């Protein structure tokens, strides 16, 4: 029996709650699903009345209303559709950093796998874009549950390296995605944040529902170092000798400024923002995300 991809973690999936993801806005899917569609459809949920025009089906005429108003109205019902979800993962060198059990890339991978599992359970189509310096992995969205396997395999095959990160993935997404789809972006945003948000704004303009998972390592969040250290950049040749105790406050201040700025830009662009601490279990992050957005 071939080895299972490490991201295909059944224990993780089992720990996920029963809260599913339901799009807040109408979604355009080709299949029927649990999500609202902008089109009127065949669901049982009444949407609105429409004056009869020739060509409308007669069976939809609301006869009670015609008796009251002496006019013919057509009863229209909501159409329910499935989602097309894209995961865009940052596979730059900085995502290899990890002080605990998982690197940031692995955390992003497990998070993607968990959410993909949930989406595929509710028959939504899940696609994957992972852009690194040398790898450009694209898994087209499919709604079949069996699609989880290739997704996880693709995640595992990617080795984060180089400086090309999430911005390239977002460009790729902007070419692929249509209106009213869902995009999850998982990155530490240590690339050029301006270009990332520029692309995100472009996606939002096409009414994509975008959620940003800002993945950071506990080291990056707390800067727990003590000894005099020569820090070397992972995506650049920068290096600096510092005494962490002396610069911790300033670092945390800078980080806080960066996080609040990122949150603020997300808010401005109606992008859902989730800060992911790699030390926090993935299921907790997923449950917090799903419950935090109101459960559907």
């Amino acid at each position: 029996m071939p080895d299972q991809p490490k991201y295909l973690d059944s224990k993780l999936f089992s720990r996920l709650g029963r809260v599913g993801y339901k799009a807040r806005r109408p979604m355009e899917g080709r299949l029927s699903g649990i999500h609202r569609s902008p089109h009127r459809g065949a669901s049982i949920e009444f949407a609105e009345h429409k004056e009869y025009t020739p060509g409308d089906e007669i069976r939809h005429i609301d006869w009670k209303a015609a008796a009251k108003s002496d006019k013919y109205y057509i009863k229209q019902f909501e159409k329910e559709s499935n989602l097309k979800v894209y995961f865009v993962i940052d596979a730059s060198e900085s995502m290899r950093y990890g002080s605990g059990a998982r690197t940031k890339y692995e955390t992003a991978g497990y998070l993607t796998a968990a959410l993909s599992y949930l989406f595929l359970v509710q028959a939504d189509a899940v696609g994957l874009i992972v852009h690194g310096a040398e790898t450009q992995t694209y898994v087209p969205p499919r709604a079949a549950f069996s699609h989880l396997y290739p997704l996880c395999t693709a995640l595992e095959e990617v080795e984060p390296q180089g400086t090309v990160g999430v911005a390239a993935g977002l460009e790729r997404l902007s070419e692929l995605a249509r209106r009213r789809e869902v995009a999850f972006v998982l990155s530490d945003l240590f690339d050029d944040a301006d270009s990332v948000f520029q692309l995100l704004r472009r996606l939002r303009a096409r009414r994509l529902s975008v959620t940003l998972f800002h993945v950071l390592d506990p080291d990056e969040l707390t800067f727990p170092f003590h000894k005099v250290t020569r820090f070397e950049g992972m995506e650049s040749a920068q290096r600096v000798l510092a005494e962490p105790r002396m610069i911790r406050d300033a670092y945390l201040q800078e980080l806080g400024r960066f996080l609040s700025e990122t949150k603020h830009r997300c808010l401005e662009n109606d992008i859902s923002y989730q800060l992911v601490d790699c030390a926090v279990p993935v299921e907790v992050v997923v449950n917090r995300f799903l419950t935090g957005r109101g459960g559907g």
Partner: protein
Amino acid sequence: MSFELPLYLWGALAAAIPVAIHLFNRRRAERKRFAAIEFILRSRKNLIRRMKLRQLLVLLARIALLVILAIALAKPFTHTDRLTSFGGMTSSATVYVFDNSWSMAATDGTTSNLERARERLQELLRRTRGDEMVALVFASRPASAPIGRLTYDVSRLRESLASVVLSTKETDMLGALRLADSILSKAPAHLQREIVVLSDHSRHVWSGVEAPWGLGAAPIVRFESIAPTSSRENLAIRTVAVEPAPDVSPQHFNVVVTIANYTKRAFFKPIEIEIEGRTVKGYLDQPLAPGKAAQKRFLIKVESKGDRVGYARIPADALAFDNEYPFLVRQNRSISVLLVNGAPRTVPYLDESYFVSLALQPRADARTKVRLQTIRPDELATQSLTDVDAMFLLNVAALPRSVVRRVVGFVEKGGGLLITSGSNVTPDYNSVFRELLPYTVRGVKIVVDPRSPEAKLRALLFGKVDSRHPLFRAFSPGRRLLAGHTSQFLLLERRLGDAKVLLSFDNGSPALVERRVKAGRVFFFTTTIDRDWSDFAIQSGFLPFVHQIARVLGGGTRVPPPTSVRVHSEYPIEIDKNVESVVVHAPNGRVKQFSSSHWGRSRRLVYRDTALPGVYLVEQSLSGSRRRLVSRFVVTLGHSDSDLRPAELSEVKKRLRLGSSSRGTTLARTPPGQPKQRLNLWPFAILAVVLILFAETALAAKR
């Protein structure tokens, strides 16, 4: 700024430790790849200046801490005119070294250096605080301490100072410093030890002075110079030596005056000699350059007998003491000649010593008195030679070895010996008188039979004369005073010692040869001194020839009493027989009387009260007689203090191992009226250390 314990300054090298730690920490830094380096850089951008500044400040604080700590341990101090209220008033134990040697009599025309030094010390004492201990040491030889223990009672010093007089002794700065150091060694430990030297600080003061404080910590030494430049120009008569000039006449003396020039100009002024009311002036052959010494020789004639006092003088300058130098001319005593007659005859004119005795027989008016004594060779073994100046061995046969040893001893001590030839003088002399003979004897050479008619024609005459020898100075080279016909003589063979020929026969054979044997000299006449082999004894030149031989050989075996001694030296007075009391008159008129109990059987009185320079008169009163024997002696100052040129204090400090690079320190010359006080700087350094420690702690903790 100076340091009491400068060795601790090496501790400042510890300042390299924080630098080394700093560099080591930089190299030891852990390497870590970190994704969020941008924030570190951004945070450092904000912090970088502050951090760098703080790191630099911490590093500087640590370096300063160690450096200032080392400086504090080295106990820095300085001297200032104005004392601060903190740390300046250190109690001290001070020994004042007061130079009262005779060179301090130097004056600029108004005030002597001694008075200046006294005033300066009075002023220093007025400024002394109640908690300071003081002592006083005089620097004249030998150094003495009138206040030899440290005391708080300054008035005692004032009293001692008021009574101090100029000493006739030389400076003994080394002894004074040693004494001062010894006094300070008993000072309480909390007191700062200090020596203040009040002197003219001339070269002679510090000449040969080395650090007397061994390996222990040196006290602080302050030089208080009180000599103005005008009081440093000095010419000095160093010595006056009087030597008889017997080759000229017994009344003539060579007076050799040694002059030293300690001024900045060349000296070419007259030097005066005054004796018996006469004054002789003379100049040096060439101007005497500054810093040099030269001699001027005067030939003087003393008419009167006995001790005559003379004075050598040079023009007046800053120091008067060494401008006049008394000297004593002591007339030569009579010459005692011992004639050993080797061939006595009953017929006088045939006697070997007849013509010599006649020649040396003194005239009544003769100034040179010759005492003659004639003995036989066998009496020589028992004859006392103590008072004999010259001995003539006249045709003496070879003597026993024991007698010869006596004669050799006599000559070696300065006696003069004349050996004349004759039938008794044989080659046996070569072995018997080998220590004395100028040449070995070969045998008799008969030139002609004196009884033959042609004897006068064939006889040898005197030929070549060493006219430079004192013996022949009385003979004019042109006139043949040394005439004589010699028919026989002794042939000489081998030269011994430094022998030389003084007179030759006309055939070139030596007639008179000389050899110096230690202090004495030997003449060997190769023909007879009577008429046996030569008729020289009846020639006109014979008498002066024999006289000159007696004078030259009678230079003296006895050591005469000295004519002069240095101040504070003992002078031996030989007491004549039948003397019952002796009176010594000092130059200041003070009289000291001595009786026979003072000299006892030794007949030698040691006179010690020679503190004053000048001429001392000694009167010896004979018992039962009103006659008095009068003699004189001169007491002179030492000449070493005459050099008043300023000493190189920097070089003195090195020799005393003072200065900032060693223990102790010195002050530059302090202008009068502005005494400098010691200000301890180490309390400030300690305060700085504490403050830096606080600052360093605050900086290091604020991370």
